[in-house]
Structures are given as C-alpha cells and as structure tokens.
C-alpha cells in the first residue's frame, strides 16, 4: 500500500482503539488487554510501513479533506496538511515501537490496579497525540495534538491516585505544562495574526519574504514553551517529580518519547522548517547551546546524588536532553556546514537511542518496584543474585546510556562530541564532563545491584514473562543497533538530518503537491 494512503491510519487506528476501549472493556479483562495489544501492534505495523515508505520514496504529503492542499483558484495552501519527512518518519517508528513495548509491559505490571479501561484508553490517546505531532505540517494541528498528548500524560502521571505523591506530581505537571502550552499557543496566534496562515511550509515562505519582529517574538515564545515541555534545565523541576510518580510503563513513555516529541522534535521542526531562512540561525543556535550546556551539567550532576532509583533515571533524562539540545543547537549555529550536519545527525540518533535506553531502564525500575515495593537505592543491594536477567538488562542499558563502545549510545554520543569539539572545544569539554557525572550516577546503581544481598532483595525474583519480554526486546534492539553504528548513521541519521535541514525541499513538497 502506498505511503499516502496508509498515513491516516496512523491516527485512525489508535483513535478507534481508544474510543472503543470502554465498549470492549464490558466484555471483560482479557478482551481489554487483547484489544490494547492488538491496537498498539497494528499501529506499530503501520508506523514501520510509513517509515519504510518514506525511507524509500521520500517525503509524504497528505491533505485532510481534499486531494490537494491548495485552495480553489488560488495558489496557496488553505487546508490542513500532514507532511512526513525522514526525520518525522523516524520519530513515528520510535513512538510506535516503544509504545508497543510499554503496552505489553503494562499487561503484567498493571494487573493489580483498578480502572484499567481508562488506563488503556489514555495510553492509546497518548500514543495518538505523539504520532500526530510527528506527522503534522500545520501549526494549529500541531497544537491540538500537543494538547492531546499533554492532557493524556497529566492524567497518567496521577493515575495511581492512592498516593499523594502522584497527585501532587500530576498537578505540578499540569500547571507547568499548561503554562508551556499557552506560550506556544500565543506564539501561534501571533504568527497567524501577522501572516494569516498556519501551514508550516507556507509560513516559512511568508516569513522569509517579510521577516518581522512579531515573527521573532513568536519564535521566542515557541522556544521557551518547548524548552519547558522538553524539561531543559532552568525549568526541569516538574520532570523530576512527574516521571518518577507515574506507573513505570508510563515513565518509560514520558521519558523516552513525550519529552522528545513534544519538545525536541517540535523545536527542531519549528526552528528549521519554519524559521530556517528568516532568522539569524547563529543567534538562535547559540541560545539553544547555552540552555543545552546548563541542562547537560545540571541534569547529570543531580542524577549522581539521588537515592531514589526512578528519580535518578528522571534526572538522567534531563541530562540526555541536554546532549540532544546541544546537537540541535550546533546544527543551527553551524547551519549548512559539515559540522552542523554531523551534530544534527548525532542529535537525531541520540533521540532514537535514548528512547530505547531510557524506556528499558524505566521498565527495569518498574520490575524492581514490582518485586520489592521500594525504589530506594539503599534497599536494593544484591539484586544481581536474585534478579539476574533484570540486572543483565540494566547493565546493558546503563552501559549504553553512558556511551560504551559496543552499544548504540556510543555512536550517537560520539557524533555529538565530535561535532561539538569541531565547533568549539569548550562545548566538547562540557559534554565530556556531563558524561563523567552520568557514569558516576549509573556506576552507583550498578554497584548497589552487585553488592552484598540483604533484606528484601533475598526474596526477589525475575518478573513474569509479559514484563520480561519487552525488556529483552529492548535490550536486543540496543545491542543490534550497537553492532552497526556507522551503517545506521550513514543510511538513516544523516539523510534524516539532511531532510530536516533542507527547508526548500520541505516547502517544495507542499507547494508542488497539487
């Protein structure tokens, strides 16, 4: 089936699954679980096909409600469009894959909770929102999907409402997220008022013809709102509460996917595809680099001193977001040069890798909580003896996130180090310092796992199959991706970076798609 025809099913299938979940739930627990599995599996199949299609045939343009985005008798687009280039398609693949793993994991992990029909409805809506952001080519459509994603994640963070921790984290997340969303909405309103269009590609043309101060103010609002959403450093405080408080399968999706799609991807898309030709990329790039450096140091350093395992992972996510932002910042500041391209490819590569790694690590944290009922690192001593498979998976995940050579994290971090050292040696040094902190944090956890067994750890055992399989699959994915680091980089990541950089092609696909 061709890519244009199958693209809407990326939205239709999860939406159908979410809306029919209350009805299917009436048939019982088994039916509900099978339905969630089926829907997210089908979404993964469609997502893989979209990725394959875009990889083979280039950017896909889809118009909602008509054949062509252009209006009748006029030569500019008036309809809502979805435009998927290789970068977007890669994000689609990442979202559908990790979400599918999270749903499998939920079968075992959430078995003892109540209100599961709402849980599965929300998890499908969360996936739907992220997919929408990845494929959309319309600013307001982007905002709608961003809100769908955000509201589903507020509710999911507070899902275990028997503890005040979850409710507090959910409310905090909601306040911060709403502020960020309103900044973004204000930016969209300014752009619409100034240029009278919401289609990203056409907006890019309008902006380059007539760059105004209003456009720059809108960009400032976008950057501030999206840095909130991605958990960059001065405003990362919600992340460290929200991600640990959620059920672990949700933490995996929040840390692995939501902050990437709702923050990094959207930031890159707006900065490159809309503003690429109409602002000083050097200034914007350095601005992002500045925040990236703060994020990198603060996130990784805070991870070292945590005693709560999930909080440690959450702070580590902040640190890794710093690396990705650094890549994007250098990509902007060195726009058009070889260094910029490498940095951007590294950022995209690391986005994908970190989704797998942090997904895996949070699933492991969930398995530990499930067995021991605690996530305090002081009580987890000696798990290596009683939970060998889990510990092995953690070893792989931790080694990958630090950037050990045979695993996937190495290649992406290497690209970022290399480009930052080429661009400005100081940035390279800062990136290395961040990694030193990151290593310290994970070595601490590993040291605990391999320590002397004691207390509750003695009765723990490896989790059941439905929780073990997603961990195993993610581990295998990390190892296999680590075996072909430069092949993946040359075949997928560099072309994705080129697709993102090439603003003219993005516009041409839209305007010529008639």
């Amino acid at each position: 089936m061709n890519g244009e025809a199958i693209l809407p099913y990326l939205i239709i299938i999860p939406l159908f699954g979410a809306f029919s979940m209350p009805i299917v739930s009436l048939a019982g627990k088994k039916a509900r679980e099978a339905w969630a599995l089926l829907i997210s599996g089908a979404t993964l199949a469609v997502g893989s096909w979209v990725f394959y299609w875009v990889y083979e045939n280039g950017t896909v343009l889809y118009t909602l409600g008509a054949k062509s985005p252009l209006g009748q008798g006029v030569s500019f687009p008036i309809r809502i469009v979805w435009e998927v280039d290789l970068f977007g398609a890669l994000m689609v693949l990442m979202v559908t894959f990790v979400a599918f793993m999270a749903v499998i994991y939920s079968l075992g992990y959430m078995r003892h909770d109540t209100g599961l029909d709402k849980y599965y409805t929300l998890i499908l809506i969360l996936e739907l929102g992220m997919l929408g952001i990845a494929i959309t080519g319309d600013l307001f459509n982007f905002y709608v999907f961003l809100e769908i994603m955000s509201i589903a994640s507020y509710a999911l963070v507070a899902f275990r409402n028997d503890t005040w921790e979850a409710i507090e984290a959910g409310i905090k997340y909601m306040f911060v997220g709403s502020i960020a969303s309103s900044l973004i909405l204000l930016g969209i309103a300014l752009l619409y008022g100034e240029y009278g269009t919401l289609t990203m590609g056409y907006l890019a043309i309008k902006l380059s013809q007539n760059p105004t101060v209003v456009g720059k103010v809108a960009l400032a609002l976008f950057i501030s709102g999206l840095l909130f959403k991605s958990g960059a450093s001065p405003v990362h405080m919600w992340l460290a509460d929200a991600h640990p408080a959620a059920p672990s399968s949700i933490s995996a999706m929040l840390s692995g996917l939501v902050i990437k799609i709702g923050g990094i991807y959207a930031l890159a898309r707006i900065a490159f595809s809309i503003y690429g030709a109409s602002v000083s990329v050097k200034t914007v790039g350095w601005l992002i680099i500045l925040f990236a450096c703060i994020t990198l140091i603060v996130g990784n350093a805070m991870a070292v001193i945590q005693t709560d395992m999930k909080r440690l992972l959450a702070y580590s996510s902040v640190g890794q977001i710093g690396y990705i932002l650094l890549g994007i910042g250098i990509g902007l500041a060195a726009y058009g040069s070889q260094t910029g391209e490498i940095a951007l490819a590294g950022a995209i590569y690391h986005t994908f890798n970190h989704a797998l790694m942090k997904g895996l690590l949070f699933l492991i944290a969930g398995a530990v909580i499930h067995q021991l009922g605690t996530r305090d690192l002081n009580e987890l001593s000696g798990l290596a003896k009683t939970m060998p498979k889990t510990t092995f998976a953690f070893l792989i995940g931790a080694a990958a996130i630090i950037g050990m050579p045979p695993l996937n994290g190495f290649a992406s971090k290497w690209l970022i180090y290399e480009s930052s050292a080429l661009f400005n040696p100081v940035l390279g040094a800062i990136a290395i310092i961040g990694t030193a902190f990151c290593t310290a944090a994970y070595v601490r956890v590993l040291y605990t796992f391999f320590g002397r067994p004691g207390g509750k750890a003695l009765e723990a055992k490896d989790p059941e199959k439905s929780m073990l399989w997603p961990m195993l699959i993610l581990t295998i994915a990390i190892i296999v991706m680590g075996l072909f680091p430069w092949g993946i980089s040359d075949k997928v990541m560099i072309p994705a970076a080129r697709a993102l950089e090439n603003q003219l092609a993005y516009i041409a696909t839209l305007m010529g798609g008639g």
Partner: protein
Amino acid sequence: MNCVGDDMGVIVRTAARATIPLIGIFGAYIVAHGHLTPGGGFQGGATIAGAGILFLLAFGLKEMKRHFNKNLYSALEGIGGLAFLGAAMLGIGVAFFYNTLWHNGPFLNGKPGTLLSAGYLPIMNLAVGLKVFTGLVSAMAGLALYRRWRE
C-alpha cells in the same frame, strides 16, 4: 424528608422538575443546529449535561445512583467518539475528513442554510454532543461518588 437527605428540598426539586426538560430541549436545539448557528456539539452537549448536573444537585446522590448507569454512559461516550471517527472516514477513498456526503449525497446535501445540509457536520455535532453530555455527567457523578472529605 429527614435530616440526612442529600437533596436540596422541595422547592428546588419542583423547580428542577420544571426546568430540566427545557434545558435538555435547548441543548438538543444547539446540537442539532450546530452547523447553522453559533454553538455546536460541544456547547450543546455541555448544556444538556447541565440538566444532568442539576438533577444530581437537586435530587441528591441517592436518586442519581438509581438512574445513572456507569457502564452505559461509558459505552455511550465511546459510541459518540466512534460515530465521529466513522463520519470522518466516510470519504476515506479521497482523503481522511473528506466531506463525501456534501459533495456526492445521498442525504444531508440540501441547500446551504437548511437543517439537512453540510454533509457530515450534523452527524459529527450529534456525536460530539453525545460524547460531551455523557462524559461530563460521568465526571460529575464520579466527583460526587468518590469524594473523600466530610464524614
């Protein structure tokens, strides 16, 4: 009629009995004319939900429990969403959200400004109205049922 009753007394109940049908009819009007006049599925659905909330407040939780079936409302909410999605998919042969009823018929393709026009829009308004009504009533009933304060 004793002191533990959770309704709001005979005056409010009588007034509610008179106004609930009117609120419901007004809401239904807003939903049905969503494609012609200001308002639509969401606004009309919220108005109808106002009737349900008035019932809950005036007659109390005990009476509400007798008339409110959680599973039914949940299923109706799902059906509302599915109907919306179905209407959007009618023209999937051309594009998602293509208004094939308006362009090709066979019904809802009357003169613009009449009630039976605008293709899938009236269907979508009805679907959204159903979803918003059931969703808001379920949310209010949930708030009333699971409150943790007092007693």
